[in-house]
């Protein structure tokens, strides 16, 4: 057991808090992109992930992901309810195991929340509430074990520093599956469903960028050179991706859009996530620019293939995750990895194929399980709101609230005068 490092522990705990902030950030990033009548539902899907995942994480999440590995596929149940994790328990890095539990918990939250963007404005909240814990258990926990818990992808030697496969490819593939299960929104794609609050989108993107330093630099699990390099790579790849996306915007739309700038930042963050500790800052710029441009070109795919991935979870997270995961196979350099090298550094295709296998298996696994699970939920409790609820506004019907009360003459969410409060039987005077 290593001796505890106060500096490392402080950084990992701080990073966990930074990563937690990403989910409310994501909620605003997504919430601004939907129409005004669905903003609360969009925010609530993220907040429900914030509510459900930590409870599961403590009960059976952490143990199934990180209590050893059974056949490289899933962890054990020895730490159910964090049994045996105490004040003195240490992680392999010189930090308390509790710090690692917290840091990994917030990763699980955002991964699940990411999926919600693909099914915006039409998913039944009850269906989502059932999907979240089951998908987390059946997909996220095994994949986290494969990559970070010593499972088969770890053994394969594929590199994923902070979650290109576990978080982004995983969520992107599940998002695609659910978008197919739920079907298109009414009126899509004939009606333009433009974002109702782009300042929210940029605010959310800014919070995500900020929190992502905890995500990537925090994944070093220490306050050290590796964390600092990951920090710089995260900064510069994201910047380059904004430029890459805006370039495509200007060529294709003749305008640089705020939605493009925000999405470009996220695409860059996604792509540099697996790679941030394995490439040089120049490599990070290349990954960022490629991710920004490729993701920008991919947002049109849903129109060509006819799936309503409402907020482009596929184009940004699945595609961005694939770009980052594969480009490690090109740009990884020994001075950062301490071993494996990518194709451009003379390492041949050895690393590249391992990266491709890891990406492909996670895509298929997450997609298939999410698709089957989505179908089962849809067939039993229903995974889509009624036509009336969707058109009138999912906020009012699912949550009895609306995001904006802009007129004093509107009847408001209760559509009428509030019922008078029941008369008190007695009043307590002078108490």
């Amino acid at each position, binding site marked *: 057991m290593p001796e505890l490092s106060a500096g490392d522990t402080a950084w990992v705990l701080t990073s966990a808090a930074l990563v937690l902030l990403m989910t409310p950030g994501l909620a605003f990033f997504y919430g601004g992109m939907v129409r005004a009548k669905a903003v609360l539902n969009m925010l609530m899907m993220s907040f429900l992930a914030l509510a459900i995942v930590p409870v599961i994480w403590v009960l059976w999440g952490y143990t199934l992901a990180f209590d050893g590995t059974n056949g490289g596929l899933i962890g054990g149940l020895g730490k159910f309810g964090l049994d045996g994790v105490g004040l003195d328990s240490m992680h392999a890095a010189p930090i308390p195991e509790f710090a690692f539990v917290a840091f990994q918990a917030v990763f699980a939250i955002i991964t699940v929340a990411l999926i919600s963007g693909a099914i915006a404005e039409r998913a039944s909240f009850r269906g989502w509430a059932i999907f979240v814990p089951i998908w987390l258990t059946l997909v996220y926990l095994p994949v986290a074990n494969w990559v970070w818990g010593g499972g088969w992808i770890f053994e394969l030697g594929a590199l994923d520093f902070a979650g290109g496969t576990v978080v982004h490819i995983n969520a992107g593939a599940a998002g695609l599956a659910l978008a197919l299960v739920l079907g298109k929104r009414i009126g899509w794609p004939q009606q333009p469903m433009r974002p109702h609050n782009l300042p929210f989108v940029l605010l959310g993107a800014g919070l995500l960028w900020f929190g992502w330093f905890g995500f990537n630099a925090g994944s070093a699990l220490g306050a050290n050179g590796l964390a600092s390099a990951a920090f710089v790579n995260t900064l510069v790849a994201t910047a380059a991706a904004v430029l890459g996306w805006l370039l495509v915007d200007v060529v294709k739309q003749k305008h640089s859009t705020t939605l493009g700038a925000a999405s470009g930042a996220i695409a860059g963050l996604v792509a540099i996530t697996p790679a941030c500790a394995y490439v040089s800052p120049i490599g990070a710029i290349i990954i960022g620019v490629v991710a920004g441009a490729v993701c920008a070109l991919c*947002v*049109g795919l849903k129109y060509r293939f006819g799936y309503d991935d409402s907020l482009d979870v596929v184009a940004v997270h699945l595609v961005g995750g694939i770009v980052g995961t594969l480009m490690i196979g090109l740009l990884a350099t020994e001075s950062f990895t301490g071993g494996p090298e990518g194709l451009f550094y003379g390492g041949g295709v050895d690393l590249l194929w391992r990266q491709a296998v890891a990406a492909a298996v996670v895509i298929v696994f997450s997609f298939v399980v999410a698709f089957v699970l989505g179908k089962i939920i849809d067939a039993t409790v229903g995974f889509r709101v009624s036509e009336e609820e969707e058109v009138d506004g999912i906020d009012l019907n699912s949550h009895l609230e609306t995001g904006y009360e802009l007129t004093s003459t509107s009847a408001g969410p209760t559509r009428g005068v509030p019922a008078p409060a029941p008369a008190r039987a007695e009043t307590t005077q002078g108490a």
Partner: protein
Amino acid sequence: MKLVTAVIKPFKLDEVRKALEAFGVNGMTVTEASGYGRQKGHTEVYRGAEYTVDLVPKVRLEVLVDDLDVDQVLGVIAEAARTGKIGDGKIWVTPAEAVIRVRTGETGPDAL
């Protein structure tokens, strides 16, 4: 009395308003509107999709005027709102049978 209704390009509102004030019109009602005319809307590329924008943003301006002033008011609005490009808008006139100023109860041309 007549009600003059003009649907114009939003950025021309200020110019039209100033021109009407200079002419001596004391009040008006302005609402945001959207619509299309002979040329229909236009197409726009956004976020990977091409949309037909059928309804173009417009401003709808309503002025009550005395019968004698109608032709001149029409001229003032048309002059100020014109860019010469498509989508400049339209102006029409409808008879207003009665007008009453709420505060004083004045009626007819006195209420204008």
